[in-house]
Every structure is written in structure tokens, then in C-alpha cells.
């Protein structure tokens, strides 16, 4: 029928509230190909999390069509991995048990996959550690391993590195690209950070607020690994930045808070 892994058509979402509602998303049209890395960027409150939660099946109350591999998304499932801004590990489980979650480590195949993933996210030696013993970056890598163990068709990441310091963040971006190049899992990655968006993506989706609409999509064809200091990278970054500034101006102007 179609060749797209993920298809979003005329997606609209409205939050009703007393004294009027918020049009969080309006007429979103977006496709993601198998193995593609999409980043979604936009000002705070433009509906990025809302979009991701709908694709994850966490929010089923919307208008329009959202299909994964041809099937309408009916609810959460292991074919859609989700990484929250915070790691959200189960504090009473060790690292390996957090990754396994509802799968038993006594199962040979699961145990082997968990070891492989611990290797992949570079947490060897910490299998038996509890979440309180991990740094923020390590905990987030456990969360990524947990999502990957289920072999999701698409991995949805909602500002996963937002709480990390710049150094750890850069390290995690490279780690994620490594994982992506090994596994070829389709990624949809929400971020505030323009550098991050350009560094990671095949395409950068720019959203604008009130109502949340796609403002533009910037393809990034630079080969990996990318260097943030090269002129080509800076050119692309400036392109995304200027798009971003345009919508920021509109947003400020509309809300009457013009300077």
C-alpha cells in the first residue's frame, strides 16, 4: 500500500479546558521512513510532547490518522519505544532487571540480549547497580537499553538529554548515533537544542505554536559522523535558526508580548 513506516495525516489535537481550550496540534502531516532519524524542534508549548505521546499510543483522543507500518495506532505497545526526559527507572530493580522489566532474565535469549545491550550502552560492570547509584547520563542509557530490548519499529525520544550537562549531552548524542547506526531503529527525537537537532537528524521538523503546526522541514544530508564546527554544519544550523526565529517572532507578536 505505502512505503512509509510512520504516516501522520491531518492530525489535530485539542485540549479542552474551562474558559476555552488549547489547539495543541493542527493538521499535522508527516511521514517517517524505515530507519530514518527525525528530530522535532519548536518553542516550548508548541505540542512536541503531545505529538510524541499520540504516536506512542499514550493519548488516543485525537482527530486524524496515525499509522505505524500501515496499521492505525490503537494504544501503547512494544513496537513503539518511548524515552522520557527523565530516565524513569524502577528504583527497586537493578540495571539489568530494569532493562529486562517484564521479561525474565532466566530466559537464555533475553539474558544474552540484555548483555549485548549493556555492552551497546557501555554500562559493563553496572549490571547489578541500583538506579540511585547511577549518574543522570548512565540512567538515561539504561532507559534507552530498556526500550531497545523490545526491538521497537520506532523509538520516540522526548528531550531525552535535556537534563544533562553539555559534555554528557554531546557524549550521549554520539552514543545514540552509534546505536542508531548499529540497529537502524527509526528515531523520532524531540529537542529544544538546534545544534542537537542538526547534529542527529536526517530531517529536522520545525513546529510552530498556537496552533501547533509544522512550519518547515529542513533536510540534513551531511554524512555521519558530523562535526559541529564545520562551515557546512554551521550553515544548516543558521538555516534552522532563522526558521526558528521567524516563528518565535510570530508567537511573541500574537500573544501581545512584543518588545
Amino acid at each position, binding site marked *: 500500500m505505502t512505503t512509509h513506516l510512520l504516516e501522520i495525516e491531518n492530525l489535530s489535537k485539542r485540549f479542552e479546558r474551562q474558559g476555552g481550550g488549547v489547539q495543541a496540534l493542527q493538521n499535522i502531516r508527516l511521514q517517517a521512513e524505515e530507519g530514518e532519524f527525525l528530530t522535532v524542534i519548536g518553542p516550548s508549548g508548541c505540542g512536541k510532547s503531545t505529538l510524541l505521546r499520540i504516536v506512542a499510543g499514550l493519548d488516543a483522543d485525537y482527530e486524524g490518522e496515525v499509522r505505524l507500518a500501515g496499521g492505525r495506532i490503537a494504544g*501503547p505497545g512494544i513496537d513503539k519505544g518511548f524515552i522520557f526526559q527523565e530516565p524513569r527507572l*524502577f*528504583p*527497586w530493580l537493578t540495571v539489568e532487571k530494569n532493562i529486562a522489566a517484564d521479561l525474565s532474565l532466566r530466559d537464555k535469549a533475553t539474558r544474552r540480549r540484555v548483555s549485548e545491550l549493556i555492552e551497546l550502552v557501555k554500562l559493563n560492570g553496572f549490571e547489578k547497580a541500583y*538506579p540511585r547509584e547511577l549518574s543522570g547520563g548512565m540512567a538515561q542509557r539504561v532507559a534507552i537499553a530498556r526500550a531497545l530490548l523490545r526491538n521497537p519499529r520506532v523509538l520516540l525520544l522526548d528531550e531525552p538529554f535535556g537534563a544533562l550537562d553539555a559534555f554528557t549531552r554531546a557524549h550521549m548524542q554520539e552514543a545514540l548515533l552509534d546505536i542508531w547506526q548499529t540497529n537502524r531503529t527509526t528515531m523520532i527525537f524531540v529537542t529544544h537544542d538546534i545544534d542537537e537537532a542538526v547534529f542527529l537528524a536526517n530531517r529536522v521538523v520545525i513546529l510552530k505554536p498556537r496552533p501547533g503546526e509544522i512550519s518547515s522541514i529542513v533536510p540534513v544530508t551531511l554524512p555521519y559522523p558530523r562535526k559541529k564546527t564545520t562551515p557546512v554544519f554551521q550553515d544548516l544550523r543558521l538555516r534552522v535558526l532563522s526558521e526558528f526565529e521567524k516563528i518565535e517572532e510570530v508567537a511573541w507578536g500574537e500573544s501581545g508580548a512584543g518588545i
Partner: protein
Amino acid sequence: MNKVIEVKARTEATAAPDAESAGTPAVVRKKRHVRRRIGPLDIALGALIPVVGIAIWQFYSGSGRVDSFFLPSPLLIASTVADLGATGELFTHTGISLQRVLLGFLLGGGLGLIAGLLVGFSKRGEELFDPMLQLLRMTPNLAVAPLFILWFGFGELSKVVIIANGAFFPMYVNAVLGIRSVDNRLYEVSKVLAYSRFDTIRRLILPSSVPQLLLGVRLSLAVSWLSVVVAELINSTSGIGYLIYYGQYNSRTELIFVGILIFAVAGKGIDSLVRLLERRLLGWRDTYKG
């Protein structure tokens, strides 16, 4: 605060860099696990006030300046304990009280847990049971004790039921609270991981509520321990409560003190056991440990 421990900690700190440079994270993590040992100095510090207090008490009561009927001296109390120990009465009374506490706690705490799970997990269950249980919770144990004696006779059963009645509510309230206090952010994780309803209960809700459930156990045991006094003071010919009653009736105040002492020591012993269990089960918790 404590010299012995400080010195120990310092030697560990100097030993740690070697382990880290050796690249063995397991060793580094071990270091953080080291539990603070209770040294002789800690014990001395904790015992300071009681020891001084008892010395002053002995000085006044022993010198005959205070009537032994009002305040028997510590030595008299100690010798009474020794006498009761020699005749074996100390152990039979303590044993029977402990048995009642345990049976009452198992019955009341068990039912409280079941009711708590029912109400915690189902909105319908809450609507059905909670208002009634909250009403019953407010009735003092002492007030309903005569009814239990009327219904269940003067034997062991009425005593166990009186204790169970007290043990029920702390367990019930904390079981409901525990289930209802699951972190919504972890609940979302369980949805994203597509947990079944059963897995959500087993792998999220129950582990999340363990701290609250253990608090329920502790409070419930404490109330059982208080209720056994009620039960034995009202009607009994055995147990520590009876010992106190007997002491009062026969103007042997030292027996009242012995009874109080046993309650304190055994109560603390039980509480320590539960806390040991707590430390084993809740090692994962990342909270201020003082």
C-alpha cells in the same frame, strides 16, 4: 561525631583511588554500600541519659526518702525480675502475651491487608467499604472490648479479637495509601512497556507500596502490643497485663514496673525485627539516612 568511625572512613577513602584506577567499578560501588557499624561509643552515648537517670532514681528510692509503694527502687525491680525468672512466671506471662499479640496481629493485620488491597485497587470497593471502615476506625478499642467479651467469652478468642480489632486499621489505611501513591510517571512507563494488568500490579504497584505496607506492619504491631494490655487488664488470669493488674490489686508496685519493662523491651524487640526487614527490602531507596 564519632572518632572511631571517622578514622575508619578515612582509611577507606585513601584505599578507594587504587580500586578506581584498577578499573573495577564493582569495587567502587561496594564502597558506597558500606553500612555504618554501631561502635561501642554509639552505645555509650545512647545509654548515657538512662544510666544517669537510673543512678539518681536508685539513690533516692534506695535511701528510703521515697516510699517504695510509690516508686520502688531499680534494685527492687531487678530482684523481682530475677525472682519471676527463677519461678519461670516471667516467661510464661511474656510467652502468652506474645502469643496473643502475634495471633491478633496475624488476624487483624491480615484482614486489614486484604481489605486495603480490595479498596486500593477498586473504586467500587472503596465506595462500598471505606466509609464504613472509617467510621469503625474512630471507635476506641477500649469501648468495644466489652462487646467482644460478651460475644466471644472470657477465653483466648475474645482477647485475640480485641487485638485484631486494633491491628486491622493501621494495616488497612497504609495498604490503601501505598497502592494509591504509585508514581504516575512510572505508571506511564508500565503503559509504554505494554505491561498486562497482572504485571502492572506485580511489577509496579506492589513494589511501589512496599514502604507503606511495611509502615503498616510496624504500626499494626505497635497497636497489637497496646491492645494486649487492654485485653489482659479487662479479663485475664495470665499475661503481662495480668501481672500489672495483680501488682496494682496487691499493692506490689514493683510488679507494675516489671510489666512495663517487659512491654518496653519486647515491643522494641519486635519493632527492631521489622526495621531489619525494612532495611533488607528497601535497600534500593535513595533517601536521607541521617
